[in-house]
């Protein structure tokens, strides 16, 4: 088919837009939105990113010293999580993958709860504080949580509640059938759901360009009637702006959105991975120049809103906070093993009590060989 083909008429075409306010050097490329002209708001965003990075650094250290199991670092992706956490309202529902700690901390998950989770303790997902208490837990299976958002959003719409569901995943997840089923069905019922693809360019060792033939991940939304858009995921102002717009449009009945946030995974996939096996140090060095914290810091400094004393104080308090979380985590008493039967059903069937009792009598076991 071509423009000159007399038998063919254009039925549909699409566009994908990319939004950015601050470039990697912190220079303003477009007039800032109202919230970004408020110094306190910008500093809150900055603080959230710094605290997340301090937590991340401490957590990797805990893993390396054998005090934690495998951990998925969010280094470099702090802006996406911060934008999600500040754009959502408390009454909204967040369905994460497993790398968005910034969003979770902003919604009331305690740092030590994330540590418990990666230490292999189910209490790590029993978030006591609201609004995290009604959010979904970390999802290790890839993309299977995206269509859960369809059911959740349908329930909200059925009850006529002005609440939104936001579900996030990575670039690798967009290859899965679950992702397509979610995207394809959201507009069937015009659901209040926002899908966020945190495209950090790597799915373990698979680079983005070998994950799919699609030119952008945002355009996968168009297959479901959603005008997907891209945003610079390392520009926390742009990401929050675009998310807030999508969330509020969903809340007011305009239906679903898909946002592809372009970012970069600065660490290995997890602490069990070694990215030097498949990507160059040169690439990572270049990616550091697009770091979200670096760019907001430069902007704040350029506006004389931030100085070396502020930085030192914040780094110290963020470090203290991460240390305190580690201490809290390490002080948590392990549970006895029969608790693995708790919450299996609302009430453990009588016929299974003997199994629980057997495990209780045997007591804690480490691996024998």
């Amino acid at each position, binding site marked *: 088919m071509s423009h000159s083909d007399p038998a063919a008429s254009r039925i549909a075409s699409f566009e994908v837009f990319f939004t950015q306010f601050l470039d990697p050097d912190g220079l303003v490329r477009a007039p800032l939105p109202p919230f970004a002209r408020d110094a306190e708001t910008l500093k809150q965003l900055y603080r959230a990113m710094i605290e997340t990075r301090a937590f991340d650094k401490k957590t990797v250290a805990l893993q390396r010293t054998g005090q934690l199991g495998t951990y998925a670092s969010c280094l470099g992706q702090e802006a996406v999580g911060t934008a999600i956490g500040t754009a959502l309202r408390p009454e909204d529902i967040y369905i994460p993958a497993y790398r968005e700690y910034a969003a979770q901390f902003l919604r009331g998950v305690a740092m030590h709860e994330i540590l418990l989770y990666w230490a292999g303790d189910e209490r790590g997902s029993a978030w006591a504080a609201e609004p995290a*208490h009604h959010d979904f837990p970390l999802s290790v299976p890839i993309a299977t949580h995206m269509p859960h958002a369809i*059911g959740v959003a349908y329930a909200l719409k059925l009850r006529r509640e002005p609440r939104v569901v936001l579900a996030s995943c990575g670039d690798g997840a967009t290859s899965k059938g679950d992702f397509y089923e979610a995207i394809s069905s959201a507009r*069937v019922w015009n659901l209040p759901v926002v899908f966020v693809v945190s495209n950090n360019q790597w799915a373990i060792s698979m680079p983005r360009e070998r994950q799919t033939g699609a030119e952008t991940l945002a355009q996968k939304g168009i297959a479901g009637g959603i005008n997907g858009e891209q945003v610079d995921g390392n520009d926390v102002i742009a990401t929050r702006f675009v998310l807030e717009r999508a969330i509020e449009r969903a809340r007011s009945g305009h239906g679903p959105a898909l946002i592809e946030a372009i970012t970069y995974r600065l660490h290995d996939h997890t602490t069990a991975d070694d990215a030097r096996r498949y990507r160059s140090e040169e690439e990572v060095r270049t990616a550091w120049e697009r770091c979200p914290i670096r760019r907001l810091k430069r902007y704040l400094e350029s506006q004389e809103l931030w100085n070396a004393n502020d930085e030192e104080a914040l780094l110290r308090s963020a470090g203290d906070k991460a240390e305190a979380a580690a201490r809290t985590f390490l002080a948590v008493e392990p549970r006895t093993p029969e608790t693995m039967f708790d919450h299996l*059903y609302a009430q453990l069937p009588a*016929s299974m009590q003997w199994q629980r009792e057997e495990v209780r009598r045997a007591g804690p076991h480490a691996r024998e060989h």
Partner: protein
Amino acid sequence: MADLALIEAVNLALHSEMQRDANVVVLGEDIGRNGGVFRATVGLLDAFGADRVIDTPLAENLIAAMSIGLATQGIRAVAEIQFSGFLYPCVDQIVSHASRYRHRTQGRLSCPLVIRSPNGGGIHAPEHHSESLETVFAHTPGLRVVSPSTPARAYGLLLAAIRDPDPVIFLEPTRIYRLFKQAVVDDGEALPLDTAFVDREGSDITLISWGAMMHDTRLAADRLAEEGIAAELVDIATLKPLDLDTILTSVAKTGRCVIVQESPRAGGWASEIAANLAEHGLMSLFAPPLRVSGYDCIMPLARHEHSYIPGVERIVAEVRKVFAVAPK
């Protein structure tokens, strides 16, 4: 009170519970406007509207996932998967998530959902429409698996399944959907889950089954009665959690047991029951517990399905083997 076929009893239960509880929502392919390919959901769209009677896109994995999402928000989702073989694409969502959200969140979130599907063959259907999938789900921790064998039990057990706070896989006996009718009272009374039913008392042998095979097992018991063998019939109804006490009490009385299933033999639910009998009921038994089952080949297409699905003859033959080892 009316005489209803099993599928009509399912329909009645859905109407009844959707009337009683505004949180109940049904979803699935062709269940709204079409009333379901087996007419399980006839009339629900008119009675309750499109918000609560959802015709979904063609995506079983999505149906299961959507049910999970709904259920976490307190909506009692009752999904229909059109035919048993279409449950295969749902296995990931059911096993990875429906069965796990409560445990994963230590009780914060849970999945009070029901997935109903016609189970088993015998209706001359194409490939993938005749599977017996109960063991896949019965083996999975965190699920309940229920299979009714009569209209009254379909009504009462479906009400129980919908009201249960945890996920229930409700496998309906396809080939007896309309085979016979039974009086069903629309009283909104649920039958107990996790409970086996003694259909008929007898002193000579315990015959255990569930779902569609329970019908053939009853017919086999009638045939055996003519020969002077009094069979006790146990319809386990809930495969998981299994009511072992009722089974053991029966076997203690009769001393003989045959377990009847349609599914493939290897690792079928009859194996689980037989293992439990060996562990807990060996001293009651005069002969080994035997199993009647489908074969360990792929369910054939319609032309040979009745060579696969056990009938009265194979059940009676297996009972004779038991009496050959342990005569009355």
